């Protein structure tokens, strides 16, 4: 994930852009038999996504994101502890409102995310391909799976409580039931390698129940995540439900783990070597903590049906049990 080099203007100019870097297929900005750019493309500035807005990092710094073949793709924001704190504040402010939406409404909004991703499918394919160095066919599969994953979790919004909740036949004259509620603000350390599908696979089960998320994007492959944020910003997801910070992970993950107003940390995407320190840092406010698999994620198959599960929703909910007497 070492992708940082001092940024020089000349180098940036010399490098091809994101879109031009994906040579496997003609894209909208190229035309003609030789694929020569018809015009100078308008590049995108990749910023953070906090509280529904796209601010630059307060640090004013950037780091260079390179493609799989070492070519320059873009400058990404080098987020800071302050950005993490802003993101947590935005998440906390929005979370109750998001949780109070009906399950039907959250379901439709997650489905809407899939609809909008579908419309940007070619862009995601190009970005994933550039970031991960995957061929076009595989990139399409990865993007399609990410879109389908939103659809799959959209369907769970109004079903998982019936799977996870219970009515409890207590030995007494009481009506007793247990319902899941979102845990609150959940930090997510996005998988480093799987820039889009890995992120969506961890994010969707967190927000479907009504949590708000603060995501630290893949350090070396952050660009598809920022584009996903653009989709989220236009898909009826209230601002602040998903917040995305890009940057150098070693400068960010510890602050997210130690933040006293974060209720849970999904470290599934963290490197096993950094997991123990993160788990220790998360203890101070008794965060719910999801560990990375022991073997790491290098061989993890995000395309597998097994990478999606209603039990993952259960990792980020609290069970609330209610008692009431039965009587006239």
């Amino acid at each position: 994930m070492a992708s940082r080099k001092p940024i020089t203007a000349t180098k940036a100019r010399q490098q091809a852009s994101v879109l031009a870097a994906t040579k496997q297929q003609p894209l909208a900005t190229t035309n003609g038999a030789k694929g020569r750019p018809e015009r100078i493309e308008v590049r995108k500035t990749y910023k953070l996504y906090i509280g529904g807005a796209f601010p630059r990092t307060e640090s004013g710094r950037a780091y260079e994101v390179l493609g799989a073949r070492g070519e320059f793709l873009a400058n990404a924001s080098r987020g800071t502890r302050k950005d993490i704190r802003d993101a947590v504040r935005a998440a906390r402010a929005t979370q109750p409102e998001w949780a109070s939406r009906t399950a039907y409404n959250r379901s439709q909004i997650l489905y809407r995310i899939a609809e909008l991703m579908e419309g940007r499918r070619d862009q995601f394919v190009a970005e994933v391909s550039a970031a991960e160095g995957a061929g076009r066919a595989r990139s399409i599969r990865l993007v399609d799976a990410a879109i389908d994953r939103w659809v799959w979790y959209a369907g769970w919004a109004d079903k998982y409580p019936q799977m996870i909740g219970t009515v409890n036949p207590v030995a007494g004259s009481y009506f007793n039931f247990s319902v899941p509620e979102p845990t609150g603000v959940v930090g997510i350390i996005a998988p480093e390698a799987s820039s889009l599908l890995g992120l969506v696979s961890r994010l969707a089960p967190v927000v479907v129940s009504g949590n708000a998320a603060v995501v630290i994007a893949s350090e070396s492959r952050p660009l598809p995540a920022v584009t996903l944020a653009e989709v989220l910003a236009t898909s009826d997801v209230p601002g602040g439900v998903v917040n995305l910070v890009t940057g150098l992970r070693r400068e960010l993950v510890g602050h997210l783990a130690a933040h006293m107003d974060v209720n849970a940390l999904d470290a599934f995407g963290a490197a096993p070597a950094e997991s123990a320190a993160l788990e220790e840092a998360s203890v101070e406010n008794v965060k719910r903590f999801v560990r990375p698999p022991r073997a790491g994620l290098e061989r993890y198959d995000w395309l597998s049906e097994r990478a999606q599960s209603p039990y993952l929703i259960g990792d980020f909910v609290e069970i609330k049990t209610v008692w009431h007497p039965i009587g006239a």
Partner: protein
Amino acid sequence: MTLTKKPEARPARASWGLASRGAPWEYAPAPEATDHIRIEPEYGLFIGNRFTPSKPRRTFTVINPATEERLAKVAHASKADVNRAVTTAREAHRSSWSKLSGRDRAKYLYRIARILQERSREFAVVESLNSGKPIKESRDVDVPLAAAHFFYYAGWADKLDYAFPNRQPRSLGVAAQIIPWNFPLLMLAWKIAPALAAGNTVVLKPASTTPLTAYLFADVVKQADLPPGVVNIITGPGEIGMELVRHPDVRKVAFTGSTAVGKMIARAVAGSDKKVTLELGGKAANIVFDDAPLDQAIEGIINGIYFNQGEVCCAGSRLFVQESVHEALIDKLKARLGTLRVGDPLDKNTDVGAINSAGQLAKVQELVQSGIDEGAEIFQPDCELPDRGFFFRPTLFTGVSQSHRIAQEEIFGPVLSVLTFRTPEEAIEKANNTPYGLSAGVWTEKGSRIFKMIAGMKAGVVWANTFNRFDPTSPFGGYKESGHGREGGLHGLGAYLDVSGNDTQAR
């Protein structure tokens, strides 16, 4: 050995200071018999279905908190003993328990439940002797619920595939279980029953002040003919518990106790693949609206905070009263407080027994003093306390503000802090203004308001128009710094299983 004070040694009954309210309640002493109880002078560690001394041989003394008399000496486990217990449990998991069918595990658990029922009075008496809790509570709550937990989880043992569809649940291995002194036998049951049903073996460490019902339970294990090593019980101070938690062969850690110790345990397992559940402290809000049936609410408030001397993690220690009924409710509450009978835990009429230890009593006293110093107004009935033992008067503070220590810190004693509110929104905000989130109570006749309050309160258990109810089928556990995971019900079962299912790549 004299297990109780003789009746003539009991203190004179209190006048309760209720002359202005009518005649005080008069009760003749009604001590529970102890002649059917046998407490050994010394208990070794229970490892592999045998009592063995610790190595090196060390013991510590266990006392009756109501009399400060010695009850027994118990083994002080060493690090080597911890290793011996865990190794025994691991071997039992490998060679016998994990190979048994769920149906056979169920039968063992049903046996345990039945034996606990058969020997219920014996357990109740020993529990009250050792913990200081009133016999009517150990007899009617702790012991029956402990038996019920085993009966409930027995039935799950051969139905795990139905509990977690599509997951092929598997046992984890050795469960390290550390339990507190407030409900010694009941917490043992909460821990051991689901662990065994799921196919794990256990090493349990009871609190060092209250190991006797655990060692009595060891006798039940033997009577039930459990394979050796399935249940192991060791005693010692907190460091021994930490050794147990750190042991590399432990696959599951379950802890009930203070938030501070819970955090130490969570740090100790960080980076391992041990599954963890934590049941930690609480500072529950009990919220009374002006339309609540006040007399009923009074009983719920009393039960909420003075049950088990308030030594309950989910105790309703912060009472929020809607301003319009504050005065009326406080009057009733004070009158009711005056009728509580404080004294000999073995007396069947006793409502409030002994605080569990001198250390805990000192902590309660210190926090009560802080309440006085910070300007809250204290009320205590002028009941007399026994001249020996660790007793504390049921205490009520009015004029408490949110920032007072008695409104913020878990006291774990018979001390109620009363605050007020005007609107449901204010009540919710104040109730949630704590790092804890274990339980809450709400009293109102209005159904829609109950559900608004339930939805708003960050608490794992909400009692509406009741308080402090427990059942094996009903998941219990906290939000926020009150811990994570649930005990009881289907959710409590999952905490003892590997349910990563066929997703082997995620392990």
